């Protein structure tokens, strides 16, 4: 039960982080999880049980698309890349997040 709750809390944010991590270049699943960890300076650890379902979900929504390619160590890997719709969605989600976090900060800063 608790795992499920965490997943639901994370879902919206995780989508945003995935979109953000591939906004410059296509990336495979492992790369995305590493990238999120690095970007958050090792604070955020994405669980694979959430990551892969999220990737498939985003792909079904048409925000990202996937293609099989060759990885840096010459192995076949599935790469994910942002679509135009995904690009726009990233903008929307970032703006929402900024509004929400500044609001929360305001609340926490008060009194």
């Amino acid at each position, binding site marked *: 039960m608790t795992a499920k709750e965490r997943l639901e809390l994370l879902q919206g944010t995780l989508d945003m982080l995935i979109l953000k991590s591939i906004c410059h270049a296509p990336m495979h699943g492992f790369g995305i999880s590493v990238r999120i960890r690095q970007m958050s300076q090792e604070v955020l650890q994405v669980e694979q049980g959430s990551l*892969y379902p999220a990737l498939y979900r985003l792909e079904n929504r048409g925000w990202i698309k996937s293609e099989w390619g060759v990885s840096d160590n010459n192995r076949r890997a599935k790469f994910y890349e942002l679509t135009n719709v995904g690009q726009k969605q990233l903008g929307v989600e970032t703006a929402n997040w900024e509004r929400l976090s500044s609001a929360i900060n305001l609340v926490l800063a008060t009194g």
Partner: protein
Amino acid sequence: MSWLRNIVARSTGSSDAEFEGQLDDELQFHVDRQTEENIKCGMDRATARREALRQFGGVEQVREGVRDASRIVWLSDLFRDTKFSLRMLARSPAFAVTAVVVLGVAIGLSTTIFSFVRAILIEPLPFANSERLAVIGTFNSNREPPMTGASWPDIVDWKKSAKSFSDMAAFKNGDMDLSDGKSTQRIRGLFVTRNFFELLGIPFSLGRSFSESEENDSANALILNRELWKSRYQQKPDIVGDSVDVYSWIIRPEHGLSRWQIVGIAGQEIPFLPVAVDALGDRFGINDQVQFWRPIGLYDEAERKERWEYTAIARLNPGVTIEQARAEMVTISSHLADEYPEANNNWSARVTPLNELVTSDIRPALQLLSGAVAFLLLIACANVASLLIVRGIARQQEFAVRIAVGAGRWRLIRQLITESILLCLAGGALGALLSVWCIDAVRLFAPTKVPRLGEVSVDSTVLMFALGLSLMTGLFVGILPACLAFRTDVNGTLKSGGRGSSAARSRKRWMAILVGGEVAVCLVLLTGSGLLIQSFAAIIGVDPGFRTDNLMTMTVSLPQGKYEWKHNTEFCVELTSKLRTVPGIAAASAVRGVPTRETNFDAPVFIDGAPEIPRDERPDVRLRVVEPGFFEVMEVPLLEGRLFEPADSIGNIGHAPQIICNETMARRHWPGESAIGKKFCVVEADYDKMEVVGVVGDVQFGALVDEARPEIYYPEALFPQSEFTLLVRTEVPPEQMMGVVETLVRDAEPDVVITDTESMDTVLSKSLSKERFLVLLLSAFSLGAFLLSVTGHYGVVAYAVSQRRQEIGIRMALGATVPSIVRMIVSEGLLISGMGLVVGLCLSLALSQFLQSQLFGISAADPLTLAIAAGVLLVATSLASLIPSIRGARVSPASALRSS
């Protein structure tokens, strides 16, 4: 667009393996990369690999998560679920067959009733925008019949003033006898105003409607239906303008053949419309086609108060509601009453939507049956749901294992609902098959007068209904057991072997609710059918007032207008006396109208010496024309005075100086004294007086449930009829004499039209067809509901016993006796059914008002019926709990304790 390709590829089963393979590759790549990273951090290969797998988490969970996330996968999932469900169901065929049969019967019956409701109540009548059509008659609050016809002058005035209707036409039913010189053919049709066709949207295949002058002169112009045009005139293309010979209507003074000109062929077959007043009996039904139309009779201002002939049909203007139209017609009626106080005082128009009038007789019965079948379906659902709950318990370990190896819980619920939907679809298919057969069976004993009975069939709409009902039932039945099965605690279940205690408690509670509900709904059905059975018995118990066995009826109709009136009488007298000489026939007579199929011919009565009453407040008396010997043949008891003598038949046509009245007439008008010698007149106060010479017992000419009404009998010789019903008392079963009688009648008059050749017992039995229909169907539904509830009850108690084996074992080890254990379990079962009965009692009382209109001689809240129905259910459910509890208590304590 690659994602779209993926969707298409993935939604088909064939690429399922490909999808899974790619997912495996992707996840494998992830683990490999993690392993490499770990090696870089200094681990050896084996440790690095192990660590990578640990970091990755459960592969199967990830896979399941991905499958859930790819929304489109549901199609292939559905396919997989279905395959799996079928396998699981095949593994327990007894359960599957039970559930499919229970659901199949319930869905089949629901579909059957639906197909009747649709064809009879929902499908529009075959007229353009038939929901905007209204039938208008009149009523007078001071008089008995709720609705009578309208006079032609009234209809003309209504049409002139009413703004609610775009058009209004007048019509009445009638017969004509077509003749080709050799034989005659009786055809049934309508007298109509010329706008009738346009008003109802009936096109013309050939020709036209009546012209203005044809209507004004009531000319000999005919419009025929296509069927008659085909069968009698071989679809002759230039038939318009042809003349045909017709024996004219009896009301016309002339007799013999007259020439009629065909002016058109109607392009659409239409049924007879319900009429506000039916002086000709029920020969013109909504299931019969109109064969001809002829112009309405001549307009006569003097006929303003003659309301026994016509009915108006009108089309509502767009946007006008039936209530607005009613209000306007009330206003117009009161204006007319001011203008013509003599004819119209207290008379008001009654506006009824055509659809409502057509179905008014059968609608309450069908609504009742719809409710009953919905109840039966509910009980079947509850039954299958509790079966599924029990089955869910047996499968606890299977679920727990599947969850442990990574199946999502949502996925499990879906799997279970798929199973129940599959069951219901199979049930629905069985139901659809059953309904094909059921419809024929139900139609067999459906009342003959039900409109459009022939149109009831299983078509695409009915099949869609069955499919929709199955899917809904599947969801309904499956959701609760699935949620209860989902309430499992993986570790606990794996360990305890399926008897998680809190989950078991909530399951038991839900099963008690389901079974209690079944008992409640079942009580409603049992009470309803119990009441209907008693009501039916009460109707059958009504004394019709004559001896019904060994009595045969045959309605004989002479070509109208072929002979002078006098001849009709002579014909009838000769025929009956000839019949009396036939071996096997004890007596014969005749009457106008088949008993129990009322023909209304009422007139106000003026009793000599009674205080003055305004004309329209006069009580009515029903007039009946009989041949000599009627009372003897029917064995109607003579209470006072004498029966008819030959001298009574001598006089001027249209006036009988000596008459016989029935008991009700004598009691109502001459209470406490002898009616013999009393004088009165009918129709008008200044008509010739009649004298009562005899009083006979009441005869139920109308439906058996009707109250007896005042009636007087006339000798036929003074009121000659071209149509009469022979009454033949036979010494052998009446069926054996029918052929002989028919030959005799045809020998006497080759042009005769014979209808309704039946034994009186058949006539009576047919007159109860609606009541029998209702009582049979409802009893069948109740019986089904009863069986389901009792078996459901048995199932729940058996489950409770199996859950408590250990407890029972301990109790018995501590010295409890078998009877005390049985008592404990049975009393729990009784608690469930007791609560169900209390709810059912409240429900029965709340619903009793819907049944009351269908009952005769018993109240819908009859306490005895309620008590008996509740008692039967209580005893049956007690027995149902007794069996499993005895079985449970017989188990030896040692084996019960060991088995846990």
